[in-house]
Structures are given as structure tokens and as C-alpha cells.
């Protein structure tokens, strides 16, 4: 790269160059921090003699995690499946509706407040209704995951399209470009960072939605497993499931963040000028 002098190693994102010291630090520090949490957890529980029914030790939790790995994996897969399916449907519909709304600035400004209003309804509140309608299968979880992750995608795609600078649009229209052309050349590439940014939020929300729906009543899934373990007073299993939940949450977020970096690197570069 020509401008090595400008982009110092601290940025850590210079393409084509890997600074290993920096990479190690990036991985090592969160790992150490997490290990620290577990140690403190273990120490606190032992020191204050907390009963297992309130907070099991870290070691007991990890033990339960290993012992019940079969059921935990099975239910994790179920949750992942409902999350992914709900999320996928949200992407398809979110993109379609987002493009439809963002296409015309007037439609966008008419619909935007309603979208925000819908988005702020706690979707979790409709879970009992969904269960009432669709029974105790995985359908309510899928629908909840969809509903909860749908709006951020719509809002962001529509915003990305509708906020194309009017001047740039004038420049292109004076060249004879029709609306479709303006969208292809400017609107869509421009809204990609918005879109991928919204995926990061949406996937986390979809995951939350799926698990919450499962805890309200489902036949499978981590939420259901936690509910069962709780009523059987197997508290270590509850916490083991919690650990798995957070790990899966990080993985889902990480995957979408990677996809985002991959496709919209320019948006990150142009920000840290």
C-alpha cells in the first residue's frame, strides 16, 4: 500500500497486511476477560456459600454443560433453526418492503413514522397470541423471530434508498437516467452498509425473539429446555443453557459482522478519514 505512513498499524484494518501482535491482542484480551468472569463467579459462590438453587458454581455449570451436551446441542440446533428461518424471512420481506418504501421519497416520509411506531411495539407481547393461533410448535418462535427482526431491516434499507442526495439524483437525471438507473448506480450500493448494519441488529433480535417465544411455550429449543430444567430444579442446566445462548448470540453477530465488513469495507474506510 502506498499510504502506509497514513494508516498506522493501530487501525488494524489495512488490507493486505496482518499485524500479528495486534491480532493476538484482539483475541487474547476478550478470552482473558471471559476467563476472569468465570473465576470470579466460582470464587464468589464458594466464598458466600450461595445455594445451588440460586446460583450454581461455574464449575457445576460447566459440568452440567458437558453432562447434558446431547440435549443441549439438540435444543440449540432447534433454536438456531427457528432463528435462522425467521431471520431469513425477515431479510426477504424486509428488503422487498424497504425497497418499495425507499423508492419514492414521498412514500418514505409518509410511511416512516408508522414504521417507527410499529418497531417500538414490544413484539414479545404478541407471543401468547401467536401461540394461541399457531399452537405450541416452532411456528410461533419463527414468527416472533421474523417480526422482531423485520423492522430494523425495512427501516434501514428504506432510509438508505430515500436519502440519496437530491443533487446527485439531479446530476444523473440530467444525463437521461431513469429512476431504476439511479437506484442501480447509487441507491442500492449506497444502502448496502445500512442493510448489513441492520442485519447485525436484526440477527440478535431474531435470536432473542426465538428464545422468548420458546420460553412462553414450545416443544423444543433452548428456551423450552431452560423452562424444563427450572421446573425440575436443575439450576446448573439453566445456567449452562444461558452460556450456550450467549455463545450462539456472539457467533450469529460475528457472522453478520464479517459479511458486513466483506461487502461494505468502503463505508468503514471512508469514516475513519
Amino acid at each position, binding site marked *: 500500500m502506498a499510504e502506509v505512513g497514513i494508516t498506522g498499524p493501530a487501525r488494524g484494518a489495512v488490507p493486505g497486511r496482518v499485524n500479528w501482535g495486534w491480532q493476538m491482542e484482539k483475541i487474547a484480551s476478550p478470552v482473558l476477560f471471559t476467563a476472569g468472569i468465570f473465576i470470579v463467579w466460582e470464587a464468589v459462590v464458594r466464598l458466600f456459600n450461595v445455594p445451588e438453587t440460586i446460583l450454581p458454581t461455574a464449575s457445576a455449570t460447566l459440568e452440567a454443560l458437558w453432562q447434558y451436551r446431547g440435549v443441549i446441542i439438540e435444543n440449540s440446533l432447534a433454536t438456531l433453526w427457528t432463528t435462522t428461518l425467521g431471520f431469513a424471512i425477515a431479510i426477504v420481506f424486509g428488503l422487498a418492503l424497504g425497497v418499495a418504501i425507499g423508492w419514492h421519497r414521498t412514500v418514505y416520509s409518509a410511511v416512516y413514522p408508522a414504521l417507527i411506531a410499529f418497531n417500538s411495539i414490544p413484539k414479545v407481547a404478541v407471543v401468547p397470541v401467536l401461540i394461541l393461533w399457531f399452537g405450541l410448535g416452532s411456528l410461533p418462535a419463527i414468527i416472533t423471530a421474523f417480526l422482531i427482526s423485520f423492522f430494523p431491516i425495512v427501516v434501514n434499507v428504506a432510509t438508505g434508498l430515500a436519502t440519496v*442526495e437530491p*443533487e446527485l439524483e439531479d*446530476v444523473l*437525471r*440530467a444525463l*437521461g437516467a431513469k429512476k431504476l438507473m439511479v437506484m442501480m448506480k447509487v441507491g442500492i450500493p449506497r444502502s448496502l452498509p445500512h442493510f448489513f448494519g441492520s442485519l447485525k441488529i436484526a440477527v440478535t433480535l431474531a435470536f432473542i425473539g426465538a428464545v422468548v417465544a420458546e420460553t412462553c411455550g414450545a416443544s423444543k429449543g433452548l428456551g423450552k429446555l431452560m423452562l424444563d430444567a427450572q421446573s425440575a430444579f436443575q439450576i446448573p442446566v439453566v445456567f449452562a443453557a444461558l452460556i450456550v445462548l450467549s455463545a450462539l448470540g456472539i457467533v450469529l453477530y460475528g457472522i453478520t459482522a464479517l459479511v458486513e465488513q466483506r461487502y*461494505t469495507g468502503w463505508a468503514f*474506510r471512508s469514516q475513519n478519514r
Partner: protein
Amino acid sequence: MTTRNSSLALKWPRDAADGTLSAGADAADAFVRMSGVNLTYGGPGGIAAVDDLTLSVRKGEFAAVVGPSGCGKSTLMKLATGLVIPQAGSIEVDGAPVTGPLNIVGMAFQNPSLLPWRQVLGNIMLPLEIVSPHRQRLKRDRAEYVAKAEAILNLVGLEGFGSKFPWQLSGGMQQRCNLCRALIHEPGLLMLDEPFGALDAFTREELWGVIRDLHQAKRFTVILVTHDLREAVYLADRVFVMSSRPGRVLVERQIPFERPRPIDLTFTGEFNDIVHELRGTIAEARADKVAMV
């Protein structure tokens, strides 16, 4: 609507303009002509942005439009390019009435609005992906077009910057790219809406030189909107002063200085006399407005 503009796709007339820009030329050889144009935003009873606007600009001429802020200068740009259609009056470009967006006008605004995901070369070649016949030829004759884009980059002093991203350029350099993008497809008409307004004084003078030389070399027709009187007098063959809203042309002033004009011209007495004179008419226009309120 798409076919009628083909006549606009004329090659830049090489040095044809020298003799034809005399003050005595009448409206017959007008390239852009507006007469009695009214444009009201927001339907009847809305804000009249321009009213009874009449002006004509000759082929190859460098025209400047000055006027107080909000007087309808940008509206005039949009009218001339067919981006908005007037409620009354007629607009002709190159002898044909304007009924919709023209096909191949080059435009540049104060905000360079380059696409951050494209390198400079990709940015300035954007019009080639839109305007026929370049659009159809671009894939096949790519090397030729790239060479052309690089040539125009050299012309504005951006040699070797083709593979930079916009965020790697200064504001002045971005504005040079903006000019390149407006000119890459060799438009017959170039519309500039306060293109140097956001730049510092030194960069602005540099870019005056850039646009002066481009016009000298290619002799396209230019309409430059500005609120900088010195800019207008330095660059233009003719300056139109607009009234405050609703805008119409108050004064039309021929600028007699020979071309090419050195930047030192702006420090001469004659130059400043004209600037003062125009400044007086604008002050009158503003005073008018105050009196009316």
C-alpha cells in the same frame, strides 16, 4: 423525449466561438432560451420561485447568473435541464422545446457528491454508463474511455489520482473530480450551481483557472450560478442579475474582457468597476424586497 436531444450530443465546436460572441448577436443564435417562465412550487397559491423569467444564452457562451439567496437560481438550473417543468412560459434548448429531463447535460453542484465506494476513475466515468452511445460502447472500448478519463483528469491537475477513493482527496480535489464527471461525456451544455461556494479563497481561484481553461479548450455552453460577483465577472461573457424571489432577470451585463483572462485581471480597476456596478444593482434588488415586505 429521448430522441430529440441527440442534437445536443454535438462534438464540442473547436474554437468556433471567437468571432460569434459579439454583444450584438441577437436571440436567433440562442442555445438556451427562456421566455416568460413562471414556476410555482407547491401548486397554485404556493411559492413562486421564478416569475416572468426571460433570458437567452448563446452557443459556446459562458453565462453567469447572480442574485440574492433564495431568488430561484437553482430553480433556473432545473428549468433549463428539464428537471422541473414550468407552469407558464417557454424554454428551448438548442432549438427544441424542453418537455422533460434533457439527456446529456453536465451538471455540478456545490456538494461534489462523489460515490464513496468508487475510485476517482469510476466516479468520473459514471456518466458514460448512462449516456448513449457511450453506455453501449463502454464495455468494448473500455481502454479508450479510460484513456479519455485520464486525459481529463490531467486537464484539471489530478494526474495519477484515478485510483484514489474520494475520501483520500481534499475538498478542492473532489470538486475537480466533480467537474470531470460533468464533462466526461462532452456535453454541449454545462450547468454549474455554486460549484466553488464551499471552497477556501485560494482553492476557489485555482478552480476558476481550471474551468476557464476547460471552457477555452472545449467551448461548450456554460451557465454558472453563483453568489460571488467577482467569480461571475471573471469567468463569464455575460452576467445576469436576478431579483429576489420571485426571480427574474433585472440586469444583463456583457463582460468585455478579452480571453484568455489572467487572474491578475481581478485586481484591475475596470474589473472592480464592473463588480461594483453589479453589486449596486443587487443591493437595489434587495432593497426592493425590504420595501415590499
